[in-house]
């Protein structure tokens, strides 16, 4: 990712990474929104966290496992799996081409 400060956020690049098509009007609005948002976030930098461990989840649960068993009750039938697909063919999802595209 190109270097940037909060004044020059690489919005088009982020849009590409996020797979979200944006217009140039949107690009400008998003840039403003990001600057506004990051301004609030910057306040965090005044907090001393040098001796603090991060918390990724709060329940205290660790290594939650389940038996590697097939539960047919929880499985979709092929018809259910494809029910909401925009396009299917012969029991498959039809996906857009991603290889050999620039």
């Amino acid at each position: 990712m190109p270097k940037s400060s909060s004044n020059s956020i690489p919005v088009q690049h982020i849009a590409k990474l996020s797979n979200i098509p944006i217009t140039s009007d949107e690009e400008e609005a998003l840039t403003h929104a990001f600057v506004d948002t990051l301004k609030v976030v910057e306040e965090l930098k005044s907090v001393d966290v040098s001796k603090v461990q991060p918390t990724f989840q709060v329940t205290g649960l660790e290594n939650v496992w389940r038996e590697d068993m097939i539960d047919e009750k929880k499985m979709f039938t092929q018809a259910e799996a494809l029910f909401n697909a925009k396009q299917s063919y012969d029991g498959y999802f039809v996906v857009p081409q991603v290889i050999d595209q620039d």
Partner: protein
Amino acid sequence: MLNTLTLKNTIDQLKRKKISHKELYTDLRRSLEQNSELNAYLTLNEHMEKDVENLLDTPLAGVPIAIKDNFCTKNVRTTASSTVLDHFIPQFESTATRKLKEAGGVFVGKTNLDAWAHGSSTETSQYGRTLNPRNKEHLPGGSSGGSAAAVASDMCTIALGSETAGSIRQPSAWCGTVGLKPTYGRVSRYGVAAMMSSTDSPGPIGKTVEDTAILLNYLAGHDQNDGTSSSKEVPDFTQTIGKSIKGMKIGVVYLDHPGLASIKTLFEPQLKVFETLGAHVEYATALNPSYAIGDYTVLQRSEVSSNLARYDGIRYGNDRSLFGAEAKRRIMLGTFTLSKGYADKYYSLAQKVRTLFIEDYAKLFQKYDVLVSLTSPGFAKKIGASEGSAMFGELEDMLLEASSITGLPGINVPCYRDPATNLYLGMNIIAPMWQEEKVITVGDAFEKNTDWNSWSTHG
């Protein structure tokens, strides 16, 4: 008007055959027609009168429940208020809605929300905003704005909402309802459109504290489909209703924030009732809630960018060009805060600040049983207020974000009504993890000894 009864009274009277399903649902239908302009429901269950048959002997006895439209309901359209899911018909049921059905609840319909539950106004819904039933020139709050509005207008007996950082409590404050946000992990997230997986918490919005406690009894518990749901024993949450708060220590937080100056004077006198009831009330100093705004923002945007990556328009739904402005902002900012070179600067920093909030609350809860604050920094804002503001929700939820990122249970109870506008203020009561009973006890005591609850038959 039987639709105005509390959940407890509805169940009691149905079981004692004082009222019939037919009468209840006739009144409900009338209310749905009269209040249609509120836009609280996106999809109505056309056969609710049929669904209710044979449910009289179930625990919930066929009461009408509103369901936020981010809960997957099998064979019933589920949009999360985004046109990305315009035609989405889930082929499975969320755990929370499955449990309510199994307990004998009947779904009135799916309620409006901020698209993907991103917001605190219900204005980011791609199906139009919901209006506040208490004053239609104002917003209901959000993201569970449709559910709170449905309760406030008696278009259901109780509702299911979900909260990531304020989305149950803040719309409850603005609509004058009770909203109970359970401890993170108390209620399964399975089948809820994922937003911020480390804080998302389904929970009830109802007319009284007791009603929300009743519903939580049927929602709570471990679910093998959600690895973060807890296998801790689930108490009967209604056992704590009516208990004395004598001797309890109540810490008051966040009142000195400059943004609260205009409503502080309305809120402070409400605390006196706790002293009258024998509790000790003291002002306490908590970690500056302003840090929670930035902290929540980074964590939320980051988790959103990951969770919303699944919407590819292939297996279900439309393509990503249909995301609304708010979702685009959040997904993209989260992509930025998680990207190489920035993840440490933003995401890791935010996870560390989260730890500081956990430590700060741990210290406060050594001294106090519960902490109380205002739920929202003001009354319900006027329609249009959220437009053009990238941080509207974060600022409106500033008093709730810290308790959300730390997983604490909290409840909103109405604590003031402005006679000129008919708009409400809410009190937020929080307790340590897994101690919902404390917020229920204190909320119930407040509700029963004041006049602010509009369904109250006492006081």
